[in-house]
């Protein structure tokens, strides 16, 4: 039994939606009725069956359509994928990680055969069957990082570690919550997080950096982050702000259910073995308000979180214009009953 890949769009007519099974496995990010920053990092170990944590690299029903959307973004703007010259080895590390994990978790869809440096990679959903020499860039149609991340959901930030800091020296970024690889390339951890409000003062980034630089091989970690997106658009980039920024003005009480999405990022953090670099896969999950309120606990809780969110955070996440409309809409689903602790629906 394999995954039933949906045919859908993340632009123009926006036909994206989640199947009921996909709604149930949505990584709802709030474990209580309020939200504030925390270094909410935990070990990235396989989780319950039928959750997005079941496999360390999750592939879901949106895979094929997301990869088509990525190809369109790259055709218009090749700078969404960049790798500084010293990061090629990290690219091979990433290629190995993603191929090995996918082939192990989804043998019906992906297959990897290795004889020494001679590798054969079969990706059935995308119709790919390539044989290449591991470590030899000339045997692949793209650099190793670009090759494998054109076949992997989520963005990838590949970070060099040196001088006690992390450096954004490579990446594939097409499904981002309003940040730009082209702007951040070459920056260190504090520089690329400079725009985040409140967290610097709380010392969160100093602690987070200390944790991340000590991530070890075989012990990946993860955290969830969230924002909201109007229309199920993956590419909410600064480069294309003119295409999506005005969507925020189109929210009305009538269209909240279909137009407003909670956007959750599953960020994981991995040490790469040959390069000693780190990779952060940043996987984006979208859910419509109509789909979210199908779970009464999630509806109550998200209403309370959004209503009580500090203004600085709402501004930073770009929610300010439409927040009152969405809070009002969600309030219909909140009878004031207490919610149970933890993330999962009741």
């Amino acid at each position, binding site marked *: 039994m394999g995954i039933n890949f949906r045919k859908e769009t993340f632009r123009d007519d926006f036909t994206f939606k989640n199947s009921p099974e996909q709604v149930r496995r949505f990584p709802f990010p709030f474990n209580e009725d309020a939200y504030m920053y925390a270094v909410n990092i935990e070990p990235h170990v396989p989780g319950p069956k039928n959750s997005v944590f079941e496999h360390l690299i999750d592939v879901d029903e949106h895979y094929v359509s997301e990869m088509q959307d990525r190809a369109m973004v790259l055709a218009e703007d090749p700078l969404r994928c960049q790798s500084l*010259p*010293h*990061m090629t*080895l990290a690219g091979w590390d990433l290629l190995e990680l993603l191929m090995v994990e996918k082939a192990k978790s989804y043998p019906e869809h992906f297959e990897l055969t290795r004889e020494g440096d001679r590798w054969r990679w079969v990706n059935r959903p995308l119709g790919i069957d390539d044989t290449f020499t591991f470590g030899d860039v000339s045997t692949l149609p793209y650099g190793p990082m670009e090759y494998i991340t054109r076949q992997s959901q989520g963005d990838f930030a590949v970070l*060099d*570690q*040196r*001088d006690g800091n992390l450096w954004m020296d490579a990446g594939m970024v097409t499904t981002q919550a309003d940040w730009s690889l082209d702007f951040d390339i070459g920056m260190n951890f504090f520089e690329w997080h400079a725009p985040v409000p409140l967290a610097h003062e709380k010392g969160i980034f100093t602690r987070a950096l*200390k944790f991340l630089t*000590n991530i*070890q*091989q*075989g*012990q990946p970690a993860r955290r969830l982050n969230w924002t909201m997106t109007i229309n199920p658009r993956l590419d909410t980039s600064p480069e294309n702000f003119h295409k999506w920024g005005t969507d925020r003005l189109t929210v009305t009480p009538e269209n909240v259910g279909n137009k407003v999405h909670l956007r959750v990022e599953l960020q994981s953090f991995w040490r790469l*073995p*040959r*390069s*000693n670099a780190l990779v952060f896969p940043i996987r984006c999950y979208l859910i419509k308000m109509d789909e979210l309120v199908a779970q009464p606990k999630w509806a109550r809780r998200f209403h309370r979180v959004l209503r009580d969110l500090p203004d600085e955070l709402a501004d930073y996440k770009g929610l300010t214009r439409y927040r009152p409309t969405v809070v009002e809409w969600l309030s219909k689903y909140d009878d004031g009953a207490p919610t149970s602790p933890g993330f999962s629906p009741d």
Partner: protein
Amino acid sequence: MSAGTTKLNVTVTDVVAVNELVKRFHFERTDGEYLPTFSGGAHVVVEMRDNDRTRLNPYSLMSSPLNTRDYTISVRRDDSGRGGSLFMHNHVKRGMEMVISYPVNLFSLDLRAKKHLMIAGGIGITPFLAQTAQLAASSGSFELHYTCRTEALGSYTEALRERYGNRVHLYYDDRNERIPLDRLFATQPLGTHIYVCGPEGMIRWVRDTAAQHGWPNEMVHYEHFAAPQPGKPFDVTLALSKKEIRVGEDQSLLEAMEAAGIDPPYLCRGGVCGQCETNVISHDGTFKHNDHWLSKEEHCSGKKIMPCVSRFEGRSLVLER
């Protein structure tokens, strides 16, 4: 043991006497699988079951990162040390099953470097054996300057010469040969990075000389595992776990905590990674700080200690553990 990294079960497949002070140990995975890929400069922590006590010592991997069938380390016998190297030399035999950690790299190559200038003293050669193998395979530019006490005590000098020819420069103390640092540091091409591994005095000499020649700190990399030094026994109160422990003469504070069933996190066990940093609640006495992690101010503050290498002399010490 929960602290540190993921563990690997390995079998000793060979023990080779390299010279009168150094032995080489080969490990393969007991389940027959390949070992994890690693990067040049990485170390593993080897667990030694020495009667009722567990020793955990870090050793640099010296085998080629391209070959993960086996890992090799070299251990220099230290007759006046706390006993880890003696255990390796006297008790570890072919066929023995042991536990080692996943590789951890705290001495990574800077892959931006146009050239890697490596300086090794004595057993400090081991991380460079892996790094040169990694660089040679990717046509990286490097030059190795390696100083030993005598020709007979020089480990792997011939193998290095054979592999890399005149990229390897050897110096012997008994012939009064000295690495010409001033000349070397004044004549490197732009984009060169310096790496040094060896005794503490040598690391200081290299860093100071590089600084005098105007090298930025970011281009001078060093690996310094201070092995814990023996010292007078001392008593410690662990406030969180409500335990009183005694740190023996040839035991580190970290080892004493572990023996009492407490597992602070660690990676290097040599005072550089910062993982086991511990807050001091109160003290009456003098700290013997031996780490390279805390700042001078923190050493003077009396508020922090690195239990892997540092000690204490005095009447009482209460830690937040």
